[in-house]
C-alpha cells in the first residue's frame, strides 16, 4: 500500500491505484478531507462537507475491491459536487438562502452514476446563487477565492468546482454550464472544464437555471480526468427526455490518443490547413492580454496538432446584443427563484407563505426582472422571438464552420481573473466575461477549456476547444494533444496564497 500526495494528484491516478489495490479509497478520502479542513477556510470552496458520508462511500469502494468486485472506473476518486445537483439526504441549496435546509429525497442521475462508478463525494461546492453569475460573488453564503490569488475571483458560476480542483480539495468535480459556467471558471483557475453536447448528460436532479441551455459537465486537473468523469456521467436517461440516446464515446481513450499521436488523430486528420484565427469577438483593449495569449499559444501548435481552428461567428453583434441584453438566459422566469415550489420549501422546513423576495441576492433579482420584461406580452416577439432566431443562426454558423474544420480553438475568456468587486457595479461588464463561451451553449455543442499559460501576474489563461455536436471525443483528443506538449497543467497554485 502506497500513499498518495493529494496535492496535484489526478483522478485517473487515484482510480487506477485503487483498482490495482495500491491505494485504499478510505486513505485517499482522509487525505482530501484533511486538506479541506486545513485549506478551505481561506478559499470557501465547500458549502457542505459530508465527511461521514465520504468515509462510508470510500469504505464501500474498498469493500468491493476486497470482495473481488469491480469497484468502478472512478473507484475512490474524491469528488466535489456543485451544490446545484440534488443529492439524497445531503442538503442542496444552489447557494441560496431560499433553499437552505432543503434535503432532497432523491439523487440526480449524474451523481448517482458517478457514485455507481465508485467516485466518493466529499461535499457540496459553492457557486453563484442559482448559477447566476460569472464571479462567484453572488453566492448567498460566501464568495470563493481564486487559489492563485485570493484577491481575485475564481469565475462562475461553478467557481467552487474549479477552485476546488485547482487547490486539490477534490480530484474530480462536476458543475453546470449555461453561458460559460464550467469553462470560464476552469480558465480562471487553470483547470480543465468540459461542457458536453446538450442532452449528452442528463439534467435530472440538476436544479434548473435555463432548461434549454443547462449543461452538466466535469472538471479535472487534466484532460484525461475530465474525460474519465464524463464517460461515467454521460448517456441516455429515462428521467430526462432531452437526453440523447446515442452511445457514450470512449472519452478517456480519446484523451490518451491525443497524447500519443496527435497527427494521426485517428480519422480526424486535417482536411485543409488554415491559418489559425483567434476569436474575433475578443474586444480590443479590454481583452488584449488574453487575446494575445490565446493567439500565441494556439498559433502554430494547432497545425502540429492537425487541427484547423477557425472561429467564424458571422453575426457577432447578435451574440453580444443577446448577451449584453441579458436574455441569453431567457430562463429566469422559467425557474423563477421567487417561486420556490411549495413541496421544496416544505421540505426545507420553510414557511410556505414566506416572502422570498428579501432573501434573493441582486443578480437573480436583476435577471428575473429582465426575463420578465423580455417575456412580457407584447415584447415577447421583439426580444425572446428574436433571441431564438439569433440562437438558430449561431448554431447554423457553427455548423457551417465545422464543414471546413474539425474543431475551433479560441480563448475561453476575454479577460483573466479579475478582482473582487471590480465588476459588481457594472453587470454588463460582468456579462461580457461570458462572451466567448456563450456561443457553444446556444448551439448546444461541446467545448472544453484548459490552461494555456499565465499572465505576468501569475493568473491562468484558458484555451477553449469547440467541436461539433456529439464531438466530445474530438475535444478530448485535441485538448489531450495540446496538454501532452505543454506543462501549464502541471503548475499548482501556492498553498498559502494570500
Amino acid at each position, binding site marked *: 500500500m502506497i500513499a498518495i500526495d493529494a496535492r496535484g494528484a489526478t483522478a485517473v491516478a487515484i482510480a487506477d491505484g485503487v483498482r490495482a489495490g495500491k491505494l485504499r479509497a478510505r486513505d485517499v478520502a482522509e487525505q482530501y478531507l484533511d486538506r479541506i479542513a486545513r485549506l478551505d477556510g481561506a478559499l470557501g470552496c465547500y458549502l457542505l462537507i459530508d465527511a461521514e458520508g465520504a468515509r462510508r462511500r470510500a469504505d464501500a469502494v474498498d469493500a468491493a475491491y476486497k470482495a473481488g468486485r469491480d469497484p468502478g472506473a472512478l473507484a475512490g476518486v474524491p469528488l466535489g459536487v456543485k451544490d*446545484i*445537483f*440534488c443529492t439524497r439526504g445531503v442538503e*442542496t441549496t*444552489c447557494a441560496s438562502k431560499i*433553499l437552505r435546509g*432543503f434535503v*432532497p*429525497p*432523491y439523487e*440526480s442521475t449524474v451523481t448517482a452514476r458517478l457514485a455507481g462508478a465508485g467516485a466518493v463525494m466529499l461535499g457540496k461546492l459553492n457557486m453563484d446563487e442559482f448559477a447566476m453569475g460569472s464571479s462567484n460573488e453572488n453566492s448567498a453564503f460566501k464568495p470563493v477565492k481564486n487559489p492563485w490569488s485570493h484577491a481575485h475571483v475564481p469565475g462562475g458560476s461553478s467557481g467552487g468546482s474549479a477552485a476546488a480542483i485547482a487547490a486539490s480539495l477534490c480530484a474530480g468535480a462536476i458543475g453546470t454550464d449555461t453561458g460559460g459556467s464550467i469553462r470560464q471558471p476552469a480558465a480562471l483557475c487553470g483547470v480543465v472544464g468540459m461542457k458536453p453536447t446538450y*442532452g449528452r448528460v442528463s*439534467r*435530472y*436532479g*440538476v*436544479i*434548473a437555471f435555463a*432548461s*434549454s441551455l443547462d449543461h452538466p459537465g466535469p472538471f479535472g486537473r487534466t484532460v484525461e480526468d475530465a474525460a474519465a468523469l464524463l464517460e461515467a456521467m454521460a448517456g441516455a436517461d*429515462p*428521467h*430526462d*427526455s*432531452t437526453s*440523447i*440516446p*446515442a452511445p457514450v464515446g470512449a472519452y478517456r481513450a480519446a484523451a490518451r490518443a491525443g497524447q500519443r499521436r496527435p497527427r494521426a488523430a485517428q480519422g480526424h486528420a486535417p482536411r485543409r490547413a488554415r491559418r489559425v484565427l483567434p476569436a474575433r469577438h475578443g474586444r480590443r483593449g479590454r481583452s488584449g492580454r488574453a487575446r494575445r495569449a490565446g493567439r500565441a499559444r494556439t498559433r502554430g501548435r494547432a497545425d502540429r496538432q492537425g487541427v484547423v481552428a477557425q472561429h467564424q461567428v458571422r453575426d457577432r453583434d447578435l451574440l453580444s446584443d443577446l448577451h449584453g441584453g441579458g436574455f441569453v438566459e*431567457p*430562463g429566469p*422566469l*422559467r*425557474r*423563477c427563484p421567487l*417561486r*420556490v*415550489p*411549495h*413541496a*421544496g420549501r416544505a*421540505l426545507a422546513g420553510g414557511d*410556505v407563505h414566506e416572502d422570498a423576495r428579501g432573501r434573493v441576492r441582486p443578480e437573480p433579482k436583476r435577471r428575473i426582472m429582465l426575463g*420578465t420584461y423580455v*417575456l*412580457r*406580452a407584447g415584447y*415577447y416577439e421583439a426580444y*425572446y422571438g428574436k433571441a431564438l432566431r439569433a440562437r438558430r443562426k449561431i448554431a447554423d454558423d457553427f455548423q457551417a464552420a465545422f464543414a471546413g474544420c474539425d474543431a475551433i480553438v479560441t480563448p475561453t475568456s476575454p479577460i483573466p481573473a479579475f478582482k473582487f468587486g471590480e465588476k459588481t457595479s457594472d453587470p454588463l461588464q460582468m456579462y461580457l466575461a461570458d462572451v466567448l463561451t456563450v456561443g457553444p451553449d446556444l448551439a448546444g455543442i461541446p467545448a472544453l477549456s484548459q490552461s494555456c499559460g499565465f499572465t505576468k501576474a501569475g493568473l491562468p489563461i484558458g484555451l477553449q476547444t469547440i467541436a461539433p455536436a456529439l464531438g466530445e471525443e474530438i475535444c478530448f483528443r485535441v485538448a489531450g494533444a495540446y496538454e501532452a506538449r505543454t506543462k501549464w497543467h502541471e503548475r499548482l497554485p501556492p498553498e498559502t496564497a494570500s
Partner: protein
Amino acid sequence: VSLDDYEIVIGLEVHAQLATQSKIFSWSSTAFGAEPNTQTDPVCLGLPGVLPVLNRGVVDAAVRLGLAVGSKIRQRCRFTRKHYFYPDLPKNIQISQFDEPICDGGTVKFRLHGEVRAVSLTRIHLEEDAGKNIHADATKSLVDYNRAGVPLCEIVSEPDLRSAEEAAEYVRALRTLVRYLGIGDGKHGGGLAPLRRERVAAETRDDRVRHQDRDQEHELVQERARRDRARGQAPGVRAGRRRSRRAGDTPLGRGARRDAVDALEGAGARLPLLPGAGPAARRRRRRGAGGAAQDLARAARDRFARYAGSVGLSPQDAGVLVSEREIAGYYDDAVAAGAPAKRAANWVINEVLAVAGDARRLGDADIPVPPAALAGLVKLVEDGTLSGKLAKDVFGKMWAERRTAADIVAKEGLVQVSDSGELEAACSKVIAAHPTEAANFKANPKLMGFFVGAVMKETGGKANPKAVNEILRKLLA
C-alpha cells in the same frame, strides 16, 4: 328586464381524466382512493431539479378521442407552463398546452328531445391535474398530492349550447364517449371531472347589456363578434380568446393575473415538442418509436372513413368502433356473419361494450357472446321476431349463460306478438282499465306513450310496438 329577455349562451371546458396507469409526467400510480400522499414522486411534487417525461399512453388516448369527434390531430404539438400560485399545485406551474394543443376542432353530437344537436369543439388539450386541498378545520388545511400530475384532457367547446339542459346532455355524451373509447371511466372523482368552469354568456334580446361580471361581458363581446362575423359584417370588437381557471380564487386582481398568464403561457419553458424536438427525436420518430399515435391515427382513419362513408354510420358511432382494434374487429366479424351494419353498430356500442366493460375484452376468443352469436340476435330483431326490449333481455341471458339467441327464443317463447287479434284484445283491456286517460287522449296525444307502455306491460314485453301503436290509434280515435 326579466330573465326571459336574455338568451343563454354557454360554452364548456370539460376535464376528462385519462385512465393511464401512471401520471402524465412521472411514474406514480394514478389509482383512485389511496391514502393521502402515498402516490407521489419527486417529479409530480415538483421538487427542485426534476424533469417531466411525457407518458405516451396519454397521447394515444387524446388521439383516440380526437379521432372519435373528428378533430384535426396535430402532428406537432407542445406543452407550456402556466404559472399559478396555489398550495395544491406543487410546482407553482401547471404543465398544459396553450398555442399548440393536440387536437383542434371536432364535433360532439347527441340527442335532445329526439333532435340531434351538434356542438363544435374548439380544441382538446392535455394537462396535469393539481392536488387536493382538504380544509380540516378553521385553522388547518391539508394537501393531498396523490392527484397531482394525473393526466387530464380538457375538451373546450364553442359557445354553442343554449340551455342548461342541453349542457347537461352534452356532458353526458362526452362521458359516454370517453368511457366507450376506453380512455377514461368518466366517473366522478376518478374520471370526468366536475366542470371546473363554465363560460356563460348572456345577451338581452334587445341588445342592452347589463353585466357586473367582466368575464361574462367579455364572453358576450366575443360572442357578438362571432355573430357579426357570421353575418359577414366587420366585428365591432376584436376580442382574443382567453381562458382562465378558478376565477376568484386568486389574491391578485383578475386583470393583473390575466396579463401575467398571457405572458407566461406564451413563454413558458417547453417540454420537448411532441413527439420530440431536435434531430435525434426526429430520427426516433422516423424510426417509428414515437409514431404509435400516428400509426393508430392512420389505421383508424381509414377504417373510420369506411364506416362513416360506405357503411353509413354516424361519425360518432364510427369513432367509437374504430377507437380500439378489438371493437372494430368484433364489429366487422358480426357484419360478416350477416348482421345488418347499422343495427349491429348500435348493438356493439350500446350493449356489448357496456357489459364487456373493457373494450379490449372484445378481442378475447372466449367472449360469452361471440360476433356470430350477436349477428344471430340482431337478425331476429331485424326480421321482427324480437322486439328491441325483448332482444335486450335475450342478450343479457346470452352473455350470462353463453347460449344462442335462437335457443333462448325457442325455449322461452319470447317470440314477438304481432298477431292483431291478440294485440287488439290487450289494447281494449288497457283502454277499459284507464277511462280517464282514454277520454283525455284527443286533447293530449302524448298519452299514446302511456298506453303503449301499459300494453307492453300487459303482454310481458312481447308485443310488437309498431302494431300496438296502430291498434291503439284506431281504438282511441
